[in-house]
Structures are given as structure tokens and as C-alpha cells.
């Protein structure tokens, strides 16, 4: 115990020292852009529908949709990877379109309909895309998989709705669920295990087209 307190004491001393240094270093900038003090955080009410169920929360406005789902609603299927919109692990569908839940504030989703991996299927009743991921071995560690599956379901819907992509030759033609289309459209979902080929196979299976 004594040793721990000593460590804590010296750590506090170090922090105080760093803060003082920071103030000295920061001083010249203060005359360039003086910003008002940040307000004290207060909670705001928000309600939205998650997987068909109405949820009401009171949240610090800083709470992302991702943290609201995971930390406040205990829907931990949606994963936090990079928390900066680069990896796609946090992909959910809001009002029918896929977004990065880490890059949006929960309080901005009043009245929205949110679908997470838990809302797509259950172990007893898998969504066809979940079944196809299992069949085609579309994962290894599984961490990116919920985001991959949400994205994959949304991608097939985007192709069906005719949303254009970078790999389309003729912009006025309807896109098809080809392998090259799915690879381009899934580029916002990173898989460090490298299951990409099998993910594309699973998607092709669900799309009912040969890749």
C-alpha cells in the first residue's frame, strides 16, 4: 500500500509539473485565439428506436451513437475499432442507410430508427448475410464482423437502389453486384485478418449473382 501511495504521489507531482510547463508553452497562443471556457457538461434527453424498440436516454451531448449503443444500451455487438471513421467496425444502419456510429452524436438522432447487428438476426434465426458469412468463413477473429455484416447488407441494398460507385464505367447504368463492385463499396470496412475474399463470396451468395 505504501509503495502504491508513493507512486500516486509522484505521479500527481509529475502531472502538476507537466501542467505548469504546458501553461508556459501555451501562453504565446492565448493572445492569438482566446476561446471562452468550455461549459460544464449537462445531460440532454434523446429517444430513438433501436432494433424496433423505443429507447429513451439522458446523455452528455458528447456521447457518440456508438457509445450510447454499447455503454448505455448494452448492445455490444457493434464494435469500437478506431473510433475515427476509418475502420468501419462501428457500422450500423440509421433510417435504412449505413453510417459510422462513432462519428455521430447520439443526441442528433432524436426519432431515428437504428438497426444494429443484434437487430439483423439472432443465433436461432440468422440473417441470410450472417449465415453466408458462416458458410464462406468470412471472418477469423470476428471483431470487425458485425460492422462487415451491417455494411454488406446495406451495400446490396445500395446496389439494388442504383447508388453509383467509383468502379462503374457507365454512370447512367444500373450497378450489378459484381466482385469488383463489392470490393469497392466495402472499402470502409477494414479486416486485419484479411477475410476479404470470403466476405465478397458471402455477399455474392446473398446477392444471388456469380462474382
Amino acid at each position: 500500500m505504501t509503495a502504491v501511495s508513493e507512486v500516486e504521489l509522484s505521479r500527481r507531482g509529475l502531472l502538476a509539473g507537466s501542467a505548469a510547463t504546458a501553461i508556459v508553452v501555451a501562453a504565446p497562443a492565448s493572445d492569438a485565439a482566446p476561446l471562452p471556457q468550455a461549459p460544464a457538461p449537462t445531460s440532454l434527453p434523446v429517444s430513438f428506436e433501436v432494433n424496433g424498440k423505443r429507447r429513451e436516454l439522458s446523455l452528455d451531448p458528447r456521447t457518440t451513437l456508438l457509445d450510447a449503443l454499447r455503454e448505455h444500451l448494452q448492445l455490444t455487438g457493434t464494435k469500437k475499432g478506431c473510433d475515427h471513421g476509418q475502420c468501419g467496425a462501428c457500422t450500423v444502419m440509421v433510417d435504412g442507410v449505413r453510417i459510422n456510429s462513432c462519428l455521430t452524436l447520439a443526441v442528433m438522432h432524436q426519432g431515428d430508427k437504428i438497426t444494429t447487428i443484434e437487430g439483423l438476426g439472432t443465433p436461432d434465426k440468422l440473417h441470410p448475410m450472417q449465415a453466408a458469412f458462416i458458410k464462406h468463413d468470412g471472418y477469423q477473429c470476428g471483431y470487425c464482423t458485425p460492422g462487415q455484416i451491417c455494411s454488406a447488407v446495406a451495400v446490396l441494398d445500395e446496389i439494388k437502389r442504383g447508388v453509383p460507385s467509383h468502379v462503374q464505367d457507365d454512370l447512367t447504368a444500373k450497378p450489378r453486384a459484381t466482385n469488383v463492385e463489392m470490393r469497392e463499396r466495402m472499402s470502409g470496412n477494414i479486416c486485419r485478418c484479411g477475410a476479404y475474399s470470403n466476405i465478397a463470396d458471402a455477399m455474392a451468395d446473398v446477392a444471388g449473382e456469380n462474382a
Partner: protein
Amino acid sequence: MKAFTYERAKDAGAAARAVAGRPGAKFIAGGTNLLDLMKIEVETPTHLVDVQDLGFDTIVKTADGGLRIGALVTNTNLAADARVRRDYGVLTRAIVAGASGQLRNKASTAGNLLQRTRCPYFYDTNMACNKRRPGSGCAAIGGYSRQLGVIGVSTSCIATFPGDMAVAMRVLDAVVETVDATGARRAIPIADFHRLWGDRPDLDTVLKPGELITAVTLPRPIGGKHFYEKVRDRASYAYALVSVAAVIQPDGTGRVAFGGVAPRPWRVEAADALLPQGAAAVTARAFRGATPTEDNGFKLPLATRALASVIAQAKA
């Protein structure tokens, strides 16, 4: 993330007044860039004014045969609009060359114009950056500058505007429409919208505090073949090293703008006029006075080659 207060504005006037009347207040639309920067405390707004209810989410025809794109139209919906795909292909091509499907579903037209640079020294709060902290210096100058600007930069900042959509809009002579807290409206040609850094790299655009983008208008279609050639380190989901937006007419004349090279989409009208003489003539004029670093000098020949590829495709 620093604490902030939040409100959801009912109309454009209220939104503009809410931001203009409060130092440290910012608009938020899609939030994909702003929240990313707030997490690392590069952006530290004290108040956010959510503009999602303002109704600027449609694309309508204008009286002179062009299109008015609402400020809140998402990148996906703008790229997918049948009129844009048919008449302004360069714009669809530029949008779908940028970001990821998830981000394009959330990113707005106005927010895309206002996205901040991706200079790594702007993101790293341990580094000197005149854009992030005016007067602190520029660690990019003499640092790792492979991605950074080759023209229109200054001794204060060598960052680039990172977007794709705006490069196409520059070729199309788009106009940015705004309203301020007094209700005054402005129509700003896209050519004048993004500032050159000079000695104030902290100011990205000519917008005044609280001035809200309501729409972007495109003049009537100009025909021609439309191209957006983006050269990057990955085949998808990466910022441009160099990009070329071009509209080429059957007689070989046309317009061209370059992305990934400057503080704004880079177009020199006098260089457009040289298109019939080939890519080298165009880039020699467009990049006259360029100040590349040892790391990013490759962008100049790369721009020439990317444009040569576009011209070859136009002739095919």
C-alpha cells in the same frame, strides 16, 4: 472531447444568429469531420448548432437550367441524382472517388466544402501548426510533406484542401449560396470560396462567423465528356496525391482542375485554353510558380500524366 452545449435550430436565421452571437459556437451537419477533430481536441467548440432540420436537403432545377443543391444533401444522394449523373458526371465521379460508403451517407454538401486539411501536423497537437494554433509555426515545412501542397501555399502553411467534390464543382463553376445572422445573402463563386493560406492559414474559407451555407448551384450543363482521375496510395478510400477533374469537348477544348495540390481546388483558366496542345502545356501553365518540396515534387509530373490519361480517354 471538450464539453459543449447543443441545440437543434428550427430555421436558417435562428441557426446563423445562434452561431454568430456566441464565440466558440459551430454549425454541425453530418459531423464526420468535425467530430473526428473534436475527439483529438483540434476542434474545441463550446456550443454546437445542429442544422439537420433546416430543410436544405433537396436538389431542384434553377430558372436558367442548372441545379440548386441543398447544403444538407448527402454525398451519396448528390452522386446518385439522375440529373447529376447524366449532366454533371464529373461531380458524381469525384464524390464516389472520395471517402467510404458509410461516410458519404452522412457527409453533407456544405460540410464537404468545409472539411479541414488532412495535413498530419494539423492533426498532431504536439506539433507546431499555424492553422491549428496561429503563430506556433509550421512543422510540415521541412517535415514529412509527401501529401502536402505544391502551389498556392505559403511560408506559414503548406497544407492542401483534401476534398474531391469541390474539385469537380470548380470545373463546373459552381456558386456557394449563404445567409448570415442579419439575413443577408451572398453568392460566392467556388473559385473564391477557399482562401489561399498567406499569413492566415487558420482561415480556410471566406465565410464570416455565423455565415451559413444554404445551397450550391450549378450553372446549366456544358456537355462534353466528364472525368475524375484520382491518383492515390490505395485503390479506394484514400486521399488524392493528385486528382484531375475535367470536362473535355469533342473539339479537344475544355476545363480542368486539380485536387490534392493546393489550399483550394486548383484551376487556372489560362491553362484550360491550352488543352488542345496536350497535357504538358496545360500543367506547365497551371503549375507555373509551384514551390514543391523534395518529398512532393513528384506531384508535378504526376499531374501531367494523370491529365494525359484523361485526354487519351477523351479521344478514345
